[in-house]
């Protein structure tokens, strides 16, 4: 519920920086698993955490808990939007918020990238993925297909080294 600006920045901040439940490496790995599976990673994360503690019911409960409150709030905001979106002030606010929103996503991505410096060759995978997805705007399935052979090879090298 308190996941302002999307849950990912908030989740990392709470789980890693404040509560220290998971190390930065562990968080990336868990999120990484949730991200190789297609679909919304926060929901996947809720499934992972929920099912670890209480199996299928736990997974269902944590997804429902994640979605219910925010859905109600966001639909109420949507209703306000339908009525007031013509106002220049509202349009300006939304422009400002979405510019910040993109920055939050990028900033969190850059923070996650810090871990990859422990094995610099892996940065090549990051660079290829960014260029394929960001510059060439390839379909996500293709990006994963292109980058994963090198990612798996370097992941194997990294695992042997540590």
């Amino acid at each position: 519920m308190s996941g302002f600006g999307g849950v990912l920045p908030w989740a990392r901040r709470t789980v890693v920086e404040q509560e220290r439940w998971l190390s930065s490496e562990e968080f990336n790995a868990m999120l990484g698993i949730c991200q190789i599976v297609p679909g919304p990673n926060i929901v996947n994360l809720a499934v992972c955490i929920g099912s670890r503690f209480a199996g299928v019911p736990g997974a269902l409960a944590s997804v429902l808990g994640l979605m219910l409150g925010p859905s109600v709030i966001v639909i109420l905001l949507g209703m306000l939007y339908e009525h007031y979106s013509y106002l220049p002030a509202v349009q300006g606010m939304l422009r400002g918020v979405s510019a910040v929103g993109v920055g939050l996503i990028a900033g969190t991505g850059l923070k996650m990238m810090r871990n990859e410096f422990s094995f610099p060759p892996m940065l090549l995978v990051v660079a290829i993925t960014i260029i394929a997805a960001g510059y060439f705007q390839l379909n996500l399935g293709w990006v994963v297909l292109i980058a994963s052979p090198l990612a798996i090879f370097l992941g194997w090298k990294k695992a042997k080294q540590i």
Partner: protein
Amino acid sequence: MSALISLFLKLSAFSAIAFGGINALLPALYDLSVNQEHWLNTQTFADFFAIAQAAPGPNLMTVTLIGWHVGGIIGAVVASIAICWPSSIMVYFLQGYLNKLRNQITKQTIQFAASALAVGLVLGSAWDISQQINHSLAAFALTLLAIAVVILTRWHPLYLIVIGAILGLLGLI
């Protein structure tokens, strides 16, 4: 009714190929809902993204809002379920499989590889979607400022959202 069925099928299929999570799938979601299906226009998409960012909760709420836009409350429920179920089932089984894996090297290889892909996908998506959403130099400057604050400080994201809203309200963005 047919609009709801189309919404459910398209978003379910979309969820099954949308690698990299909701942040990474924003550009693809834009392509599907604006260019292909014409569920909404560019401006409404950008605004729904902003609302989902400003509101508490996961930013897959952008999808919930698109569903609501197409088919009211039922549309919102249909869209939310459609975007969640295929990946939830996959990750449930993948997690179980990884926990059973005895070979540490295999396990770590998968995790290291997935982690690097995740970082690249999130950054690539931010790059892509910033071009759809930001229309002025000031907007890009604000995005860069937000990046700097996220990296250099431990501010709560809400402060940045509020600053963005105020700057926008003053007509600066």
